[in-house]
C-alpha cells in the first residue's frame, strides 16, 4: 500500500498540486481523473520520481519512503502516454534491456519476456521494431517492458489517448485482467467513462478528494 500525504507542487510559483492525499491500495485500481492541465501527469511523475514534489510525504507499507528509493526497489512501473519505446531496439530487447542491465541473465530475461509477449498477444512481434507496430501493440510492449521488472504498482498515463477510440474497451479489459491477477494499478485519465470501467477508487485532481 502506497500513501501520499499532502503533496504540493508549483511550477514557477503557480501551484498545480495542492495537498494531494491519497492511498493506492494493494490489488486495486485507482483512477486519477480531472480535466486536461489540472496536474494529473505531474502527480504521476512525482510518484515515479521524474518530478520532485515541493512538500509532502510518501509512505510505502507504513514506512516513509521516496520515489528514488521506490525505484531502486523496483516498486513502480510506468507506462507513458506516448509509450516511449526505444526505437533502436527490437520489441524483445526493449523488454529485456533493463532486466539484463540489472543482473538478470539473458536467458532468464528472454524467457520472462516471451511469457509476457504471449500473454499480451505479441508473440509474432518479438523481432519487430517499434516503428512497425500499431498503437495498441506499442502500448502492450510498453506494459510488458514495465512488467518485466516485476513492479508492485503499475502506473499508466492516459492509456486511451494515443489509441483508436474503439480500442478503449480492450484497454479496460486488459487493466481488469491484470487486476484479477492481483496487480495494483493507477490509471491517470481525463476520460471519465474509461475511469468508471476500471476504477475501484477515483481521485479527482483539483477538487482535492476521493469519491469511493
Amino acid at each position, binding site marked *: 500500500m502506497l500513501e501520499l500525504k499532502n503533496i504540493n507542487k508549483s511550477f514557477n510559483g503557480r501551484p498545480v498540486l495542492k495537498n494531494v492525499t491519497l492511498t493506492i491500495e494493494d490489488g486495486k485500481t485507482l483512477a486519477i481523473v480531472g480535466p486536461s492541465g489540472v496536474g494529473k501527469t505531474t502527480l504521476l511523475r512525482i510518484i515515479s520520481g*521524474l518530478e520532485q514534489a515541493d512538500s509532502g510525504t510518501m509512505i510505502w507499507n507504513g514506512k516513509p519512503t521516496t520515489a528514488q528509493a521506490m525505484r*531502486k526497489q523496483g516498486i513502480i512501473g510506468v507506462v507513458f502516454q506516448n509509450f*516511449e519505446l526505444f526505437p*533502436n*531496439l527490437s520489441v524483445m530487447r526493449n523488454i529485456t534491456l*533493463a532486466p539484463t*542491465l540489472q543482473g538478470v541473465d539473458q536467458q532468464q530475461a528472454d524467457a520472462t519476456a516471451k511469457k509476457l509477449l504471449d500473454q499480451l498477444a505479441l508473440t509474432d512481434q518479438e523481432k519487430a521494431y517499434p516503428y512497425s507496430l500499431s498503437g495498441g501493440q506499442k502500448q502492450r510492449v510498453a506494459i510488458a517492458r514495465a512488467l518485466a521488472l516485476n513492479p508492485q504498482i503499475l502506473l499508466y498515463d492516459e492509456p486511451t489517448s494515443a489509441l483508436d477510440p474503439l480500442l478503449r474497451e480492450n484497454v479496460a479489459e486488459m487493466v481488469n485482467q491484470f487486476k484479477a491477477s492481483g496487480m495494483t494499478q493507477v490509471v491517470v485519465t481525463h476520460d471519465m467513462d474509461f475511469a468508471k470501467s476500471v476504477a475501484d477508487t477515483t481521485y479527482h485532481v483539483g477538487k482535492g478528494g476521493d469519491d469511493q
Partner: protein
Amino acid sequence: MTYIFQILPALLSGVKLTLGIFAITLVGAIPLGLILSVGLIPKPKSILGKAGKSLLEGYVWVFRGTPLLLQLMFIFYGLPIIGIVFDRFSAALVAFILNYAAYFAEIFRGGFGAVDEGQFEASTVLNMTRWQALRYVVIPQVVKIVLPSIGNEVINLVKDSSLVYVIGLGDLLRAGNIASARDVTLLPLVLVGVIYLLLTLILTFLQKRIEAAFSYYR
C-alpha cells in the same frame, strides 16, 4: 602514359600526407566534438557552469565563423610571434582538429536535441543509470541522426585538407602543382582532380553503406 607513371610517385606521396591529415583529424575531431557537444546541451545554473558553456559556444562560434585558411595561417605563421611554435604538420593538425571538432560538436548537439527527453525518462523509470541510458538508448539514436551530416563533413575534410598548401606542406595538391609548373602541362592538375574524385567517391560509398546499416529502424 609514361609521363603519368613518372609523376605518379610524387602524387601518391602527396596522397599519403593528405590521407594522414584526413585520418588523424577525424580520429581527433569526432571524439572531441562529441565531448564538447555534451557541454553544449545542458542549461547550467551555476556561474561556473554558465561561464563554461559560454566559453564553449564562443569556441564554436569563432572556429565556424572564420575561414579555416585563416586559422591555419594564424596557428603556423601567427602564433610563433607570441612564442608558440608548431612544426608544419602539427600546426595543420591543430587547426583541422579544432575547426572540425567545432562543426562536429554542433552536429552532435543537434543530434542529442533531436532525441526525445522521454527516452531518458523511460530509461530512468526502468532503473537504468544515466550512463546506461546514453550507452544503450540515446547515443545509438544520436549516431543514426547525425550520420548524414557527419558524412558530408568527412567529404568536405578530404577537400579542405588541400588548404595545408598554404603552410608549405607537401600534400596532393602541392605535388600536382609542382609537376604542372615544372613540366608546363595541365595533366598533373587533372590527375589531382581525378584522385580527389576517387577519394570522395569511396567516402560517399562508405557513407551510403553505413547509413544503410542503420536503416533497420525508424
